[in-house]
């Protein structure tokens, strides 16, 4: 509560700016691109501001309306929240720049308001300390996601969006019932207060099950991933990038946050179940990715597999909380950058050749070297090869797994890396082939090529920024609140 009047509240700006920008872009369709880019840039600057603030003053707390929990809603930001906001800002900026040239005028007018409101919802989500408020932000994210997924209005996109809508609504409802049970068990929806008050009772267990199931469905954890490939693969490229990089991470973040703050001490078996499903996701997703003949489907299945890595945090968090979740946070950031880059690359290739059949990518290397380079660099991070953010995350996670003697996790992670290499190099191999040109290629605007490359380069550069980023992740009391470890 301290410093209510003293500090700059970058956190509040992070929520209000994109929402306001979204409304403005809806009111002035002629200026969507300008409004959009200005808003996203301002959000990125605010994230920097928030980071600076957190590094100097520690955790950010803001009681909305001045009421404070339990009656009011609290905003809260620590290292983990900041990290997720950084993901938003970085990926958001990259994809926004790409979108400038990707959409025609009509699509741009529909894209920008939805995307800016999505950004506002995501920022609000990462800043919230209130599980009911999180529900509302989840709905913003979900509905905006569906709107974006159906943006191209093609049959496949509508089908994918419909599956996504069903899954996301069901997930939200399960989560909401869990929230209801928690509220009536503890008389509060504030996360820190819940952590203090909750005991291991049947309703809490039921809530845990419902919340885990609902959020796992939204995060597309195997075997609840069935909706993801179609939804992510059939959307427009920038949308796929946003969905895969940001939207699935949002629900995972909530799960992780609740786990660390509330559930971790009372979960025999559930952690191992989530871990086992994560392992299954890694293997299954990779194998599916390997079998795909369409690039975008392959990338989407790769997301299924990569989300699996994140769930390995749960079996590890009990014994080594910070080292486990910081590794996963690193994976989230690097996967977001790399995966968004990959979808943008897919967009470029489709724009260029009119299709995304992997076996027909002939001469892509010669004709779109920057795009293929972006794919390769992003691939390095996805495979977890050094030097890349993906490697650092995997290294940290492997370390923790070995530390706890979890050989099952270690082996699955190794296999996952090898399989990822297999599906990524399958694409690259075909990109080098020299079949005769069969169609009239369409030029790809430079902005679209370079924004994809920049995102991929960022994923690589992450490999060298571990020390400062770990410092950022360490901000806050997540560990202390849990009262475990450290």
């Amino acid at each position, binding site marked *: 509560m301290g410093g209510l009047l003293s500090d700059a509240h970058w956190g509040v700006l992070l929520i209000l700016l994109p929402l306001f920008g979204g409304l403005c872009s809806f009111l002035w369709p002629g200026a969507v691109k300008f409004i959009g880019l200005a808003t996203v840039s301002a959000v990125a600057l605010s994230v920097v501001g928030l980071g600076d603030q957190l590094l100097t003053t520690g955790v950010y707390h803001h009681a909305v309306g001045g009421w404070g929990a339990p009656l009011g809603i609290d905003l809260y930001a620590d290292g983990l929240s900041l990290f997720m906001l950084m993901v938003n800002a970085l990926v958001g900026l990259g994809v926004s720049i790409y979108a400038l040239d990707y959409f025609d005028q009509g699509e741009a007018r529909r894209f920008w308001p939805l995307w800016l409101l999505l950004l506002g919802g995501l920022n609000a989500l990462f800043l919230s300390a209130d599980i009911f408020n999180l529900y509302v932000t989840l709905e913003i994210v979900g509905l905006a996601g569906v*709107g974006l997924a159906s943006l191209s209005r093609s049959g496949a996109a*509508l089908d994918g969006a*419909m599956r996504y809508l069903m899954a996301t609504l*069901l997930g939200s*409802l399960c989560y909401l019932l869990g929230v209801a049970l928690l509220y*009536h068990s503890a008389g509060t929806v504030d996360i820190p207060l819940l952590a203090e008050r909750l005991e291991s009772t049947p309703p809490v267990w039921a809530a845990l099950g419902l919340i885990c199931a609902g959020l796992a469905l939204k995060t597309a954890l195997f075997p609840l991933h*069935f909706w993801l490939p179609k939804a992510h693969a059939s959307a427009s490229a920038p949308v796929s990038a946003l969905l895969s990089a940001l939207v699935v991470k949002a629900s995972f973040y909530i799960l992780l946050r609740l786990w660390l703050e509330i559930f971790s001490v009372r979960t025999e078996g559930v952690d191992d179940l989530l871990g086992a499903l994560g392992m299954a996701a890694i293997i299954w997703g990779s194998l599916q990715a390997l079998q795909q003949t369409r690039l975008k489907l392959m990338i989407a299945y790769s997301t299924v597999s990569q989300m699996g890595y994140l769930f390995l945090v749960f079996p590890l968090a009990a014994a080594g909380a910070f080292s486990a979740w910081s590794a996963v946070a690193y994976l989230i950031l690097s996967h977001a950058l790399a995966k968004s880059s990959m979808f943008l690359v897919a967009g470029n290739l489709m724009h260029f050749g009119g299709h995304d059949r992997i076996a027909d990518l002939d001469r892509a290397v010669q004709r779109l070297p920057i795009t293929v380079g972006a794919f390769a660099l992003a691939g390095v991070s996805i495979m977890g090869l050094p030097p890349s953010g993906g490697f650092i995350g995997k290294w940290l996670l492997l370390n923790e797994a070995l530390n706890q003697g979890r050989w099952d996790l270690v082996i699955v992670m190794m296999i996952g890396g090898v399989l990822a290499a297999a599906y990524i190099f399958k694409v690259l191999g075909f990109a080098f082939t020299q079949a005769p040109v069969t169609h009239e290629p369409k030029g790809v605007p430079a902005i679209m090529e370079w924004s994809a490359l920049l995102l991929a380069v960022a994923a690589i550069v992450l490999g060298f920024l571990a020390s400062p980023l770990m410092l950022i992740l360490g901000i806050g009391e997540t560990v202390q609140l849990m009262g475990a470890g450290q």
Partner: protein
Amino acid sequence: MNIPMIYALLGITLFSVGLYGLIVREHLLRKILALNIMGSGIFLVLVALGKRSVGDLPDPVPHAMVITGIVVAVSATALALTLMLKLVEVSGSAVLHDAPKERS
């Protein structure tokens, strides 16, 4: 067992019936109905359990949450219905084909 608890139990039963319908029925309109029934069930749980307070006033916080929830539900329903109509227009079917419902 008191009356509010009976309503709360009704709530979870409605939630489950809706879930059942969502999984078993294929027509999208039916799935949308199912989601709405699930939502009503959850709202019931929220409000009914809020009547356990000793005083004269039932807990107003769940009431506010439910009003929020109802608005969210109608928004989502409207979007789902439009999406369904567009899908039918394009594909001619109000059923998601080869829907992998075995895992829902």
